[in-house]
């Protein structure tokens, strides 16, 4: 028993080392810009760079629109599948997994061919159209995470009975989704939203090939041309992702408890 515990700690320590050593090394390297002393110079340069602010702002805005689009598509779809079309669930689950299987580069080349300026749907003919296409592409990339998060949330409530209870009290579909279903899966939706945010902030392929001024291509550009700044950017990106994960954890504490599962 004691020896088992010892080896469990050894495996844990090895796993932690595998994760933390490169991270610590990156932090250490990002602080060595000034000769002979540790400093935050690389962070100051990165955060003061107007291109950082512009690309980060662009990606945050794209993430917000992606989240709105994802919620508008996924919440009603997952709700309807649970309520009326449960037999379609395996098919929909398979479809939502496709973005993990099909490389983003394949999808983006498909977009360029389908939505070029000479196509019937010329998204790529204008900047706004390209931005919209990028958001649509991001929503698709985030689909596996958003769908699973929302579906898990719906699983914790009795969707059918709550819907019927609201219907019999006079509620229409808008009221049912907006005032009964969404508030009860809000934490799950937020989890999906933060995962979407983390994906969009670091995404490179789509933004680069659609030639959009997003944070991903900026990260790549800085990484190819500078020494210390890429390390600082990597740590900043890590911090953003971890911040999102922490928010999911904090918000999940405020989830409404189900009437049937009081604990």
């Amino acid at each position, binding site marked *: 028993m004691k020896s088992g515990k010892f080896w469990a700690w050894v495996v844990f320590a090895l796993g932690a080392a595998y994760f933390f050593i490169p991270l610590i090394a990156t932090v250490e390297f990002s602080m060595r810009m000034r000769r002979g002393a540790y400093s935050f110079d690389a962070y100051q340069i990165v955060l003061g760079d107007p291109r950082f602010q512009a690309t980060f702002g662009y990606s945050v805005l794209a993430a917000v629109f992606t989240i709105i689009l994802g919620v508008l598509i996924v919440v009603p779809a997952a709700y309807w599948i649970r309520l009326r079309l449960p037999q379609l669930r395996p098919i929909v689950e398979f479809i939502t997994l496709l973005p993990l299987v099909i490389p983003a580069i394949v999808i983006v080349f498909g977009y360029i061919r389908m939505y070029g300026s000479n196509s019937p749907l010329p998204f790529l003919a204008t900047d706004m159209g390209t931005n919209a296409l990028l958001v649509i592409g991001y929503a698709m990339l985030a689909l596996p995470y958003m769908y699973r998060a929302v579906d898990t949330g719906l699983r914790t409530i009795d969707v059918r*009975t709550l819907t019927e209870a609201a219907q019999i*009290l006079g509620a229409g579909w808008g009221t049912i989704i907006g005032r009964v279903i969404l508030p009860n899966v809000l934490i799950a939706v937020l989890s999906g939203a933060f995962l979407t945010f983390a994906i969009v902030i670091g995404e490179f392929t789509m933004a680069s090939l659609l030639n959009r001024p997003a944070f991903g291509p900026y990260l790549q550009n800085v990484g190819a041309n500078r020494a210390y700044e890429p390390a600082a950017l990597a740590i900043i990106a890590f911090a953003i992702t971890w911040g999102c994960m922490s928010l999911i954890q904090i918000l999940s504490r405020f989830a409404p408890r189900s009437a049937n599962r009081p604990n």
Partner: protein
Amino acid sequence: MAEPFLSIQHVRKSFGATTVVEDFNLDVEPGEFVSFLGPSGCGKTTVLRMVAGFEEPSAGKIVVGGKDITRLKPNQRNVGMVFQAYALFPNLTVAQNIGFGLKVAGMAKANIDARVAEMLDIIKLPQMADRYPYQLSGGQQQRIALARAIAPKPKLLLLDEPLSALDAKVRVSLREEIRSIQKKLGITTIFVTHDQEEALSISDRIAVMYGGKAEQVGTPFEIYNRPATKFVANFVGTLNVLEGKVTDAAAGTVQVNTQEVSLKGKLNGSKSGDMLSLALRPEAISLGRQPGRDSSLSGEISEVHFLGSVIRVRVGIGGNTVSLDTFNSPATPPPAVGEKAEISFSSSDMLVLH
């Protein structure tokens, strides 16, 4: 009978090739409390769901207050419903749950608050307004669900096995409370249950259902004492069934085992030589000859169970076994297994099952 408030006319419901409700008919008077009683899968909940609008009948129509509501959506019917699983909205407080239907109807906030307070008083939980459903017991949640259902003053109240998820003690007190609130408000109510005691104790009338049909509709007294079919007789209450043969249809005599019983006037439509099922409620049978009981059968005691205040005795009569209860008397020892015994009953209490 007054003009029916709810009229279910020739309703049928099929799911694919399976018919779960077949030619169901029922008229319910205003303010009446009618129970649908039957085993699982008999179609009682499906009928209720068709009245609520959650299922559309394959044929037939449903009329409420003279208006055909068969094709109306549930949110257009002005019907209140209480579900087995409470179905309170977990994200809303008790007051918000009760006021939900009123808010949807666009009622002013002051009026909603007043109605919610009134409902909380009716269900005797005035201090619970700000609690969330998870902070309440099962019984309290179901009372809130009842208040939520009746707050918008629905024309019809539907109760879908509302007591099934509660423990026995709460079930009894809540069913009495439901009945008293229903009487006070005079709201026409349909109550679905598989518990015969529940149905017998609170209903004005009961529709006993089996195989998607109403086997019998009647008052609890009629259902219990004059069951129309073998199923109703067996399903409601405990019944002793004796197989007998008509020996003389004109004289009304039936042979049970080797003994003869007179059932004058009860053998309509039977011919001499027909086999019949005869039924007796345990409380209609006495051990030994008793004054006022015109019929008797002899047998042998096969089982004796001492249950405290009551002694349950089983008597074998040929191939039939009759169960009866006698009160415990400290001065008289209980009968012994193997003893010869005579049971007596009034022939008027004997039911002939078709």
